[in-house]
């Protein structure tokens, strides 16, 4: 296709992506270098006959508003936002490193810093949910594959529900069930014999709940992809393997698994991207006190009454860097494949 024709065909898409994905990424970098203006203070002398004169500071609301109007970005702060207590917190981390007794204590101190707390949960969620989705998805796919044909359709229908449902809605549905007065919550109280047991109270239980939700929500994706893969396992190869006397395990090991490997890579890639931006469940489970993610941290900054654009932008930049690190192996591999094909 000639360059010119290609250009006209791709133009609408390209403009949309440039304006609303590439531009905001640049805008985020710019915003992260600024912080909100401080309030403009006026010093005035107040005199009264009994105590004499003293100096008083008052907020000049008009001047503050004008300043904010004139320079909506705020004042330049350089990399200050990145290093402050709410982000990378270099000073606090160094302090914790010096004063802590052992790694556990150091980790505990890090968890008091909001950025590291969010990062810890995001990474834990990503790297626990992703493998579980693959294992559970594969197990369900193998199970459904052996079902009589009659049951396959309805099973797939039901399995799609947790994945298709709006994440916020899905998490609310589970949240209501695990409420101390909901069916799962009260059953757990019965089972453990602890009438005060609440899944919302402790950080560990909240993390566990969110991870269970994540697996429930994403396992169908793994299941569907692996199930489709199982339908295309080459049956001639399997039959040949049987003729050659391969055991059941050997057939799985040397025929099925190599066939499924590219699918595992695909599911891993999509899951890493999607789990890294975990956000809605934290809103749905009202879990912010015990578990925040990077996305939630940005959302909280943005929706606060005093929206902290600078802080949200700095977290966004750090998140994007995180995504880049996560994707780097895939991109490098694709690039190598591409070059090998051309060579």
């Amino acid at each position, binding site marked *: 296709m000639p360059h010119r024709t290609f250009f006209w065909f791709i133009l609408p898409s390209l403009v949309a992506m440039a304006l609303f994905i590439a531009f905001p990424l640049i805008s985020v970098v710019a915003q992260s270098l600024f912080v909100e203006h401080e309030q403009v203070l006026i010093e005035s002398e107040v005199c009264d006959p009994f105590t004499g004169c003293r100096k008083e500071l008052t907020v000049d609301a008009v001047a503050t508003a004008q300043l904010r109007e004139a320079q909506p970005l705020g004042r330049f702060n350089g990399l200050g936002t990145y290093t402050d207590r709410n982000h990378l917190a270099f000073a606090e981390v160094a302090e914790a490193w010096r004063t802590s007794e052992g790694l556990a204590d150091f980790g505990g101190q890090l968890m008091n810093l909001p950025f590291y707390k969010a990062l810890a949960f995001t990474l834990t969620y990503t790297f626990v949910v992703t493998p579980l989705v693959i294992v559970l998805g594969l197990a369900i796919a193998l199970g459904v594959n052996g079902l009589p044909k009659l049951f396959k359709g309805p099973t797939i229908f039901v399995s799609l529900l947790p994945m298709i449902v709006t994440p*916020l809605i899905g998490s609310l549905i589970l949240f209501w069930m695990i409420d101390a007065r909901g069916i799962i919550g009260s059953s757990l109280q019965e089972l453990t014999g602890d009438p005060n047991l609440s899944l919302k109270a402790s950080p560990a239980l909240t993390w566990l709940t969110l991870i269970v939700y994540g697996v429930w929500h994403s396992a169908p994706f793994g299941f569907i992809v692996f199930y489709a893969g199982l339908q295309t396992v080459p049956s001639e190869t399997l039959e040949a393997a049987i003729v050659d006397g391969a055991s059941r395990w050997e057939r799985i090991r040397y025929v099925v698994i190599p066939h499924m490997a590219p699918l595992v890579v695909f599911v891993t890639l999509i899951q890493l991207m999607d789990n890294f931006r975990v956000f809605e469940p934290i809103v749905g489970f009202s879990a912010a006190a015990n578990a925040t993610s990077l996305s939630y941290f940005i959302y909280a900054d943005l929706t606060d009454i005093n929206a902290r654009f600078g802080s949200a932008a700095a977290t966004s930049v750090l998140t994007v860097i995180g995504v880049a690190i996560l994707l780097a192996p895939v991109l490098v591999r694709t690039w190598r494949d591409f070059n090998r094909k051309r060579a």
Partner: protein
Amino acid sequence: MSAAVTRRPPAVALIATVLVVLWVVLAAFPFVWTVWGSFKVQGDFFSKADWTYALTGVRTMAETGSPFTGAGYEGAWVEREFWRAAVNTMIVVVFTVIISLTFGTLGGYALARSGYRYAFWLLMIALVFRAMPHITLVSGYLLPFFEWNLWGHLPTAIIVLVAINQPFTLWMLHSFFLNIPKDLDESAMVDGCTRFQAFRHVIVPVMWPGVITTGLFSFLLAYNDFAVTATLLSQQNQTMVPKIASFLGSTQVEGNVMFAVAAVVSATVPLFILILFFQRQIVSGLTAGAVKG
């Protein structure tokens, strides 16, 4: 496949069946339970005394005189004007899907037919964009949108959702167009069509299966979105998902949480119908990307 390949030892078959049954219950029960509970009063669905109240509807009976009540639905749809959010969602979703597909088919077609290196790089950039958490993009829009008075309107949310949707749409349609033989449009061009005429008269008539599948996923993205709609829309333009979230702020008031339950069930119904009619397309769409690798 011959019987010898598919035959399994009874123990394996038993474990597999138990696992599948367990999964089906796990996947379906929360929905069944919530639909059932949405017709009860709060005292039953969140029962302090005994969870079986939710089944028997003791409090619902006492409060309303019948075992089922539509009070939650009435409160959400009439009193709290959930219908307005439903209308907004419909507008956002319909326009997002139509615009995404128009842009996406043109772009995806071009990417599938161009053999140049930059087409590959565009796809790679799209993949990177696909990985961006939506909220990081939102934090880039918010300040400019405030400044230029674009904040709060439905068209703003629509165009943002279209853009966020593009990387995925491009990838998906690109792989569908790769499956349509090149000879088809190239022979039309030999007969004197321009590239666009060939696209219009030869490709468009055969592309609908791919477009419908991609459209389903665009629909889901727009319908399920929370990050963009919650931050970019003003109160009266709110769509369903942020509206449900706003019900939660007032859960302390007795009965209000049932509004949220009713709203949640209402918002799930269209998704349920979608799977009912398009199960095959959803499954093929999920695997299309995988097969391409």
